[in-house]
């Protein structure tokens, strides 16, 4: 898994609450059997006009000032709906390695960490302030320091964020979760023997 340590990049705002994974990547793109190549499909129905090719000038992310953005600023309950991991894949393939929002849907939140992406949760008022600042300054960048668990603003001011220590360690080291779990393989086997391999309910 890709390591996440420090990231400095352009911030792009997404002005909607309850952004569901159907919006992040619509279903017609879930037929592929790959993990990569989803960048052009991100926010497809919002990003393009009805021809599916021409960029929608009203969709904020399409503005030239957000080109190359790697940090997505979002609103409450980001990533709700379907469990499709294609959603974080599409965000990552597009270039977003970090999301900042007041809250996330559970499954999406977990899926991000499994792809070396960092979803940061901050209080609503701080997120709203960031929205204002991003829009006020073209080229607005933030620096994410995962080790120190702070976001540094252009003026030097910093915002601390919370994160479960285990998630932090995994990202900092790029650890493969399956490998981590298999360190405890003997305990899984012991658990299975205790139950005679029968699933509970049997």
């Amino acid at each position, binding site marked *: 898994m890709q390591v996440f340590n420090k990231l400095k990049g352009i911030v792009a705002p997404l002005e909607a*609450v309850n952004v569901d994974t*159907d*919006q992040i990547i619509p279903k017609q793109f879930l037929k592929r059997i790959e993990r990569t190549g989803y960048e052009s499909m991100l926010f497809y129905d919002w990003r393009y006009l*009805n021809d599916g090719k021409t960029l929608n000038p009203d969709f904020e992310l399409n503005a030239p000032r957000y080109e190359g953005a790697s940090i997505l600023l979002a609103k409450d*309950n980001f990533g709700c709906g379907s*469990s*499709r991991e294609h959603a974080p894949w599409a965000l990552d393939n597009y270039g977003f390695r970090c999301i900042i929002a007041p809250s996330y849907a559970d499954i999406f939140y977990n899926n991000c960490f499994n792809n070396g992406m960092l979803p940061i949760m901050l209080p609503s008022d701080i997120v709203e302030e960031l929205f204002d600042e991003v829009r006020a300054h073209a080229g607005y960048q933030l620096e994410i320091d995962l080790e120190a668990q702070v976001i540094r603003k252009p003026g030097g001011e910093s915002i601390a964020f919370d994160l479960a220590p285990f998630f932090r360690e995994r990202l900092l080291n790029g650890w493969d979760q399956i490998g981590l779990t298999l360190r405890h*393989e003997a305990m899984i086997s012991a658990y299975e023997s205790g139950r005679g391999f029968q699933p*509970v309910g049997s």
Partner: protein
Amino acid sequence: MAKNIYEKIWEAHVVHEPAGEDAILYIDRHYVHEVTSPQAFEGLRLTGRKVRRPELTFATMDHNIPTTDRSVPIRDPLSKQQVETLKQNCAEAGVECFDMHDRRNGIVHVIGPELGLTLPGMTIVCGDSHTSTHGALGALAHGIGTSEVEHVLATQTLLQKKSKTMEVRVNGALPVGLTAKDIILAIIGKIGTAGGTGYVIEFTGEAIRALSMEGRMTVCNMTIEGGARAGLISPDEKTFEYLKGRAYLPKDKSWDALVAGWKAWASEPGCTYDTLVELNAADIEPQVTWGTSPGMVTGISGKTPVVSELQGVEKLAAASALKYMDLGEGMPLSEVTINKMFLGSCTNGRLEDLRAAAKVAKGHKVHPSIQQALVVPGSHEVKQQAEAEGIDAIFREAGFEWREAGCSMCLAMNDDFLLPGDRCASTSNRNFEGRQGKGGRTHLVSPAMAVAAAITGHFTDIRTWNFND
């Protein structure tokens, strides 16, 4: 101390809790489908890992398959490739796979309980958010992402943080004409689409107990639309009666021994939860969603919101939803006309749903303004049973299309989708923008309400319906 069902299942499945890390939870049943599994199997191949417990894993194809003639090959090459990839992966790993020609095939959340693969006290996962459905039988069941699918395939465990618990108690008797779908939509309307985030919900109360097993599945199915990963209902006599004679029940134990084991999972009197939400069944009306999120819902006698009366985030969301839905402010839901109808999905594609809907359809005709009215059974078994009861004939005579089983227009990955500007009464679970087809507008309702709307051309209060018995 008295324990609730979630605490019991959790404690029985923790393999290990490494200090400072999430718990390693053993998984009893892993359901796999064609859309969220190919990258997981590929991951195993790349790392040289094997499926640890193929015999605890079952696969079906449901999202991508056509609901029309199955004797012809799938036309879409990508869908075909995905379906064939699943078959191949399962064959290599030794996982039983119900392909689209198999009589056990159907939507994963319909066939699990139907085959007796889902049992009380189990931990169940699937790369699909509606896995919460299986909680209706008293199993801890939830959706996972593809990386987690790979993790479960390789280790038969999942990393989990213990959730908080929420009791959602629905008091009193449900009025005539109301269904499980109305209950769960009303609950989501009350708690909001993120109200259950971080929680596992147990549904309790007289109105929940009175539901059939299929109704309970409808309630648990949409738990995820309220933000909670899992929803459960403690097993009772109805659960055991439902499971009797199911194909995959364990063969090495007597029925009485099985029932005794299952009973032990139920929440104990006096157990506690972190939070309580209460509703009175008598206050619930037939529900219709008006917006682009399942929480944007009201009773059939209600109206769309007036944006200026709302505040903050809600205001922004309502304005944007009404614009997408092309609905005015303060508009009575009963005046909203539709041109499409979809009856089916893992929410409402079971036999009881089809029976209730057929009762409404009997002796009526689909309204001339309706361009398509699809009835898609949740499984092959449901389809066969419905046909044996003459339900297909009732629908056909009334002008509905009777299809093969699958996910179909719930998420529109196959050829069943809405066109831009279409407005659909749908028994599915999500009214997100474009969910049923780009530019399509979805109103979530119960099966009876969907069929009534297809017959009158607009949303109609089922409590005043003229039934032809």
